[in-house]
């Protein structure tokens, strides 16, 4: 893990920077989710301790925790950017055309 964090990630970052990826922009957008993780409701664990089934505990803690995290971590502008990443009809049509058209 330490090698990954101290060697692999920095090396990959340097290599990506050299091909033109702007790491500062990525770092700015990553800070919010990292901090938002702290906002997940810790007391929820004691609240679900009443459930005897670990499956129920897993589902309740997982889903409530993830929804809370998502509300804090994802801004509206970021959500719009991600939706734009989904393949649109136009882009799919262009991809299909590039496959069928002989070069």
């Amino acid at each position: 893990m330490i090698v990954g964090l101290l060697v692999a990630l920095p090396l990959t970052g340097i290599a990506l920077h050299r091909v033109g990826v702007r790491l500062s922009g990525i770092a700015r957008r990553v800070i919010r989710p990292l901090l938002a993780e702290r906002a997940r409701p810790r007391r929820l664990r004691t609240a679900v301790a009443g459930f005897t089934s670990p499956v129920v505990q897993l589902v309740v803690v997982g889903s409530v925790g993830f929804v809370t995290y998502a509300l804090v971590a994802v801004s509206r502008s970021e959500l719009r950017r991600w939706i734009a990443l989904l393949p649109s009809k136009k882009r799919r049509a262009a991809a299909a055309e590039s496959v069928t058209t002989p070069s």
Partner: protein
Amino acid sequence: MIVGNVLGAAALGFYLLAFNISSWLASSVPRCAASPWRASQAVGEGHHSALGRVERTVPLLVTLLVPICVDGHARQTLVEVLFGGVWQPAATVLQLLMILTVVRMLTAFGFDILAGAGAWKSALWVNLGWLVALIPALWIGTHRGGIQERRSRM
């Protein structure tokens, strides 16, 4: 190999179980994450447009992975539900391996971008750098603290 030789069969079993669980995430997400770059290339988008797409995808990837990898309670419950309480020591190792999985996924995503951009040499250097550092670090980590400590608590 190193973990098995140093710690023995029982600890290796816990380690392999934890490694297996941490790999589930790695084997499912990168295919989806790598696609924006490939899709950009396939539809003939320019280099800058593809890079912009990468800059939007990495934060998405991190946002999705952080809650899965950090939640210790969910990890312990997951091991208990799927494999039983006997395998609970695997959950403690899983904590570190999940963080490693995120690192692996981000670097794999980076390799894909580097390969797509034609920077094969850079990808090779990153891999070599990781490999050179990993072997002594794993040996030291297995002997001092970390996994060895977990075994002594078992």
